[in-house]
């Protein structure tokens, strides 16, 4: 919001004025809510009310920490009690050895972060219910191990802490100090979550959640960012676990490594609003008092009542307000239609230009003897070619010729069976990258034939994910994204959700995201398929202007008009083999090419 000088573009109508106002209102509401959480128990000064508000702080903190992995990164962990338990045990064990829980808290956080990375690394290749199942299984393993090694953990009888009262032992006669600590920790966790969500890491996490392959193509280390997220989340959860252990003064495996507890943590986040920074807080504020009152008022007669309420509320929320309380608030206060404007076909800027094909420069991509088999099918048969700097290389061929497979191999998404792909780095050295991140680092950007927008993000945020590849800071990335959007004719839609764009808009967004990475080599996979004639002409101009900036392009295209007027050089692929290559004119007259496209009888026509 601070880069108006960089981008003099006309802003889309009501949005910019409305946004700061909305933001201020939200900030005031948040401050009021936080103040209420702290002040209410102090004013009422009742043991039970204190207990409720301390519990709110604890659960809000735990759920916010969970949300970093479960919400931002979309990995629905139902095993977060592992980290909670580690924190609680670390605190109590060290206290029993005479070490303050303030130190134990960080020891537990460290252990939890390491454990989180070790167990998540293999599990992150699982998605949705399978990731959830694997976390449940791990939780069970931890619980059974904690029960089994009773010399270490005290086994089923659990562990007590010695009752040393005072700040250094985190144990108090009064409730106020406990509230201060719980409240402070909750605020700290909220601040961390807010920081993550509003910086590069948060964007990359959401992008990874929405479209993993597109995020990888944009240079996001998808495994790395999720491991960072889970380590932070686990550390914060463990710290809260230490405090909760000290608050309860007792711990045993069944409650520390409890599945029901894990579900509860995740549930508050979902009810409040999955993936929103302050949703989990809202979920805890809303649900904890209800259930604690049920427990306190009805007592032992109503064993199970609070759990029943939890489950029923969860089911209702999932069905009726899947975006949680935050989503509900958003719907009430932001009337539909003002936030997102239906994006329509808007002209990409016309670029008036006279075209002089520049001299092809040095080689920048060398592909040698590439082979790939899918089972018995030889999809890529000994393909070799080179791309020169500032060149547009057209890659054509009938459906199933192996063009996209070739693209996947020269962007690191697929390993070749044999052969090499070499990219010349900015330093002039040749490299043989092996994964999308390496390709992105060397300046190779790609688009996908089937568009892969990050649906839950705005157009601007989509492009920013690409821009973060060059600009780590949010402001720089936003400025770069706006410049790119301007160039691509997407400026009017910056604040629209990506999912509201038309197919032409999505194709441009796909290109814009990769352009924001400022690539040296651009791989375009059928960016013109399915768009109308005038858009094709604009797209051609756009590609030429991109090339004029010194970017080398390989383009898969079926639109012959485009291939002919764009390409400096054309390669024809058929059944995985290069059957012709050369100047566009020469290639289309090649009898072999005509045969491949149209069949034998046309060769003599």
């Amino acid at each position: 919001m601070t880069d108006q000088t960089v981008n003099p573009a006309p802003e889309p109508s009501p949005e910019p004025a409305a946004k700061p106002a909305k933001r201020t209102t939200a900030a005031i509401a948040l401050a009021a809510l936080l103040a209420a959480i702290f002040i209410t128990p102090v004013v009422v000064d009742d043991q039970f009310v204190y207990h409720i508000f301390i519990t709110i702080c604890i659960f809000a903190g735990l759920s916010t920490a969970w949300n970093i992995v479960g919400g931002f990164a979309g990995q629905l962990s139902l095993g977060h009690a592992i980290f909670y338990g580690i924190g609680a045990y670390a605190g109590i064990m060290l206290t029993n050895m005479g070490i303050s829980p303030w130190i134990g808290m960080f020891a537990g956080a460290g252990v939890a972060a390491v454990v989180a990375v070790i167990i998540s690394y293999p599990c992150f290749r699982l998605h949705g219910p399978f990731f959830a199942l694997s976390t449940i299984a791990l939780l069970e393993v931890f619980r059974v191990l904690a029960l089994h090694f009773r010399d270490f953990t005290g086994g089923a009888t659990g562990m007590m802490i010695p009752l040393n009262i005072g700040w250094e032992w985190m144990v108090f006669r009064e409730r106020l100090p406990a509230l201060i600590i719980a409240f402070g920790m909750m605020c700290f966790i909220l601040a961390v979550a807010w920081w993550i969500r509003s910086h590069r890491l948060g964007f990359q996490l959401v992008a990874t959640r929405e479209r993993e392959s597109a995020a990888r193509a944009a240079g996001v280390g998808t495994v790395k960012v999720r491991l960072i997220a889970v380590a932070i989340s686990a550390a914060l959860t463990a710290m809260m676990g230490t405090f909760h252990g000290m608050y309860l003064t007792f711990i045993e495996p069944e409650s520390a490594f409890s599945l029901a507890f894990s579900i509860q943590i995740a549930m508050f986040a979902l009810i409040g609003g999955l993936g929103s920074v302050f949703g989990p807080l809202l979920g805890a504020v809303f649900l904890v008092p209800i259930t604690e009152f049920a427990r306190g008022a009805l007592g032992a007669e109503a064993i199970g009542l609070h759990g029943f309420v939890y489950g029923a509320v969860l089911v209702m929320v999932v069905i009726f307000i899947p975006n949680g309380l935050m989503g509900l608030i958003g719907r009430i206060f932001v009337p539909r239609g003002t936030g997102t404007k239906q994006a329509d076909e808007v002209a990409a800027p016309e670029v008036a230009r006279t075209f002089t094909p520049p001299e092809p420069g040095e080689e920048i991509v060398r592909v040698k003897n590439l082979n790939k088999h899918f089972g018995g099918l030889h999809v890529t048969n000994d393909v070799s070619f080179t791309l020169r700097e500032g060149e547009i290389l057209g890659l054509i061929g009938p459906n199933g010729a192996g063009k996209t497979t070739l693209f996947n191999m020269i962007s690191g998404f697929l390993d070749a069976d044999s052969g090499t792909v070499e990219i010349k780095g900015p330093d002039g050295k040749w490299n043989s990258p092996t994964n999308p991140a390496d390709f992105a680092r060397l300046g190779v950007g790609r688009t996908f034939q089937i568009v892969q927008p990050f649906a839950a993000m705005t157009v601007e945020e989509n492009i920013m994910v690409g821009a973060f590849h060059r600009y780590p800071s949010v402001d720089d990335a936003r400025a770069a994204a706006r410049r790119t959007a301007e160039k691509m004719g997407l400026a009017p839609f910056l604040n629209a959700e990506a999912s509201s764009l038309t197919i032409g808009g999505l194709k441009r967004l796909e290109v814009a995201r990769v352009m924001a990475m400022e690539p040296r080599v651009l791989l375009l996979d059928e960016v013109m398929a399915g768009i109308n004639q005038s858009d094709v002409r604009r797209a051609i101009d756009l590609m030429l202007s991109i090339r004029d900036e010194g970017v080398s392009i390989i383009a898969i295209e079926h639109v012959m008009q485009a291939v002919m007027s764009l390409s400096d050089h054309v390669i024809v692929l058929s059944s995985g083999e290069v059957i012709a290559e050369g100047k566009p004119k020469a290639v289309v007259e090649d009898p072999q090419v005509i045969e491949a496209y149209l069949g034998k009888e046309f060769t003599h026509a």
Partner: protein
Amino acid sequence: MDVFLQVVVNGLLLGGLFAITSVGLTLIFGIVKVVNFAHGEFLMIGMYATFLITTRLGMHPYAAVAAVVPLLFVLGMMTQKFLIEPLMSARNHDIQIFATVGLSTALINLALLLFGADIATTPAYGLRTAVEVGPVRMLVGQIVMFGVAAALVIGLHLFLQRTQAGRGIRAVAQNRAAAQLMGINVSRVYMITFGLGAACVGLAATLVAPLYPTSPGIGTYFVLTAFVVVVLGGLGSIGGAFLGAMIIGLIDSLAGFYIGSDMREVAVFGVFLLILILRPQGLFGGRQTLSHVS
């Protein structure tokens, strides 16, 4: 040697138990593509129903099949209709996880409210009597359960492969939209499938109830193993679930005897995690079942 034989037989009989509790889960997963986290609670409901029928009406637990199986069938259909179907078009599919997790939490605690935390013991009617076959001891109820599990697996397989209704169900599983275009009522197929899956677990409940004490948390105890079995067998594969159940039964029994009874779960879940990570399509799953994983 006799001990080893006994442990192996125990493992296979335990496998029968795991098979019968997992078949419904894998059926629902394979067709409706929903991981039903409330599956264990369906079992728990069936067991309480069996308990009530045997104690209040004085009937044999196996006679409760006539009431419990239809009850669970209807419960399953209702779950699909009112819980899963509204979520099928949701942008975020993971939200279905929370729907069934919420249902599971609500049902466990409802049972706590109604029956308390105490265990309920269904009369055994001689089903807990041991018979000796050579050197090996087995319970009558376990033998019956193994037989029924095998029959159920074969029956379901034949139903899906040979009947018109079964073909319709498989068509829906492979491509929902195309099946719809071919005139199949997809919504009804899903309801029937979910009902069938729940009915299978109802049948399991009447067989399990006389052997195991019933409690509100009993579902969680069985369902985690059922998940292991289903993933091991290849998601949605009914025959695979049976073989997976046998393997897990053997691992459970052998680990319990040779490592220590409290470490059985570590062995079982350890295998589960290895399979999930190294071979997510399951030991016997082919390529087409893999498509659900991504």
